[in-house]
């Protein structure tokens, strides 16, 4: 019997929220030194106004992560409208030392066939789209979180044939919508151009509850996320056996080193899904877990 080598990789998605530069630097230093993470995605995906705060730190953070044995990928903006954003996208795509994860089709235009990855904010829902993008240089696809398990299974079959890799988010709040309007600024009676970076006040998103007191959504500037935290620990075995080979954690202010270890141990079958689940629950996650999308149900639901 051939020895089966476990090729599963744990990845850390880009920080979606507006954390102060020093907080990000400290966060990545700890990830570099301590976390059971294989690949780290860096870059401002949500708001171009936030970029200048961290631009000068990328080189150092990248070096630190690489010295810690991590692979670094740069993630692009997801919404490109203004001249400044178009220039950011063009500049990003000139990067030659690292792979790019594309989150807007403008990136595909600039990359023009060079190898790249497709981010979860791109709409890759089916095998024809995957095949086309793979023929133009895409090597890994992080699938949209709303895609149900059976569709992921079909895409995994095609991915094997195409020689590309599949990534799925398995932890953290789920991105649900993008807008041109900044809802953080709006909540504070401001507009996007005069936001004064109020989004910094909510490092895991601004809570939005219903008028009858239900916990509902989380706002992050132009992005709307789930209140619930995606948790696919119980589904990891199924994902692995379909051929998903990259498992993404979305960074939050909770102990991500501990989160990573729980997922790594579960992938390595060093811990049972039940045990992993209770360890995860003990980390003070400020919301219920959900996995509804995976099971073809409403995304906020949890199937036990």
């Amino acid at each position, binding site marked *: 019997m051939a020895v089966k080598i476990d090729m599963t990789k744990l990845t850390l998605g880009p920080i979606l929220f507006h954390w102060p530069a020093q907080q990000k630097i400290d966060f990545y230093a700890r990830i570099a030194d301590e976390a059971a993470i294989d690949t780290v995605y860096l870059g401002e995906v949500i708001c171009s106004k936030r970029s200048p705060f961290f631009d000068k730190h990328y080189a150092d953070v990248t070096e630190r992560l690489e010295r810690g044995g991590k692979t670094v990928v740069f993630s692009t903006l997801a919404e*490109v409208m203004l001249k400044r954003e178009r220039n950011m996208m063009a500049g990003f795509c000139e990067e030659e030392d690292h792979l790019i994860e594309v989150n807007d*089709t403008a990136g595909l*235009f600039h990359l023009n066939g060079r190898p790249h990855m497709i981010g979860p904010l791109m*709409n890759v829902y089916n095998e024809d789209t995957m095949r086309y993008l793979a023929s133009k240089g895409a090597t890994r696809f992080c699938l949209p979180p*709303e895609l149900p398990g059976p*569709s992921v299974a079909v895409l995994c079959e095609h991915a094997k044939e195409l020689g590309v890799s599949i990534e799925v988010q398995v932890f953290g709040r789920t991105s649900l919508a993008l807008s041109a309007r900044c809802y953080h600024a709006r909540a504070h009676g401001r507009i*996007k151009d005069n936001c004064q970076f109020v989004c910094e006040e909510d490092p895991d998103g601004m809570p939005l509850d219903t008028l*009858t007191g239900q916990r509902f959504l989380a706002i992050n500037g132009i992005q709307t996320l789930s209140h619930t935290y995606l948790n696919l620990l119980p589904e990891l075995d199924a994902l692995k056996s379909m051929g998903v080979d990259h498992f993404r954690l979305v960074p939050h202010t909770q102990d991500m080193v501990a989160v990573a270890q729980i997922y790594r141990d579960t992938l390595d079958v060093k811990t049972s899904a039940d045990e992993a689940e209770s360890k995860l629950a003990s980390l003070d996650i400020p919301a219920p877990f959900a996995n509804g999308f995976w099971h073809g149900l409403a*995304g*906020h639901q949890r199937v036990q």
Partner: protein
Amino acid sequence: MTSPELVCPAGTPAALRTAVDAGADAVYCGFQNATNARNFPGLNFTVPELERSVAYAHAKGTKVLLAMNTYPPAGKQALWKDAIDTGIRLGVDAFIVADIGVAHYIATTYPDARLHLSVQAAASNPESIRYYCQEFGVKRVVLPRILTVPEIRNLAAEVPCEIETFIFGNHGLMVEGRCSLTNYITGLSTNLDGVCSPAAQVEYKRDNAGNLTTQLGEFTIDCFGCDETAGYPTICKGRYTTPAHDGGYYAFEEPISLNLSSLLPDLIGAGVHALKIEGRQRSRAYVKKVVSSFRKAVDDISSGRTAQLADLLALTEGQKETQGAFKSKTWR
């Protein structure tokens, strides 16, 4: 000044005939399934209905654009391909597409077919639009409702295709094609199933004091006092609370309609080739009123006269209207 094409909604065969008779240059419609983004009960066309409708429209010189603007889930693409094959057989004038796989299928299987890029593709910058033109031969892009008129003018100068913009109707707040809020609450997806805040999961609950709560799935979208007019519980038009804001507020947008009638000359001057009226879910009376009013307005502007559009306000949602992102960046 060249006259732009007036593109009008046709949710049913009757609405299609109404729009054609009221002066639409083109109508857009879809089949009764998940292949289009208005997959609502009671709407859309069977194959024989579309066949008769294409004949009716073409006899009067009106184009028929077939909305094929959802994203097929993996393993289920046959439904979309069948619909495209049928559209070709029936002689529709263009396909409105969002998915790369769908665009590629049409471009390679039917290289003479005309492709319009749906607003659902969320192409909001010249590079994205050029990508779709270059890869699939897209001839027209429907712009997301997030750009100002000056931004549209600049963009028009940089892309090798026609531009279509929305001018009237529902004003969704999220970037189209990038919203799964409905799926998060209901288990039905806007991108995959063509569904937004589905009526089957809406509930209206009145308490003893006469207050009305509207719900989608398990979640409260809004609460109305007896003196307020209750709106349909669309997620992005609901009222919510957050610690940073006093009391319930419209966190995304009020229930309001887009009305760009007063910006029409500017839009046409900016190089917009086609003006789109939203509302495939609307009544024939609505379609007749809106299409004939805009027909007259576009003709007036094209011949240098001042357009009269004041009475369109009465048709807008909750009698409130906005110019949305088009007028000023302060909307953002």
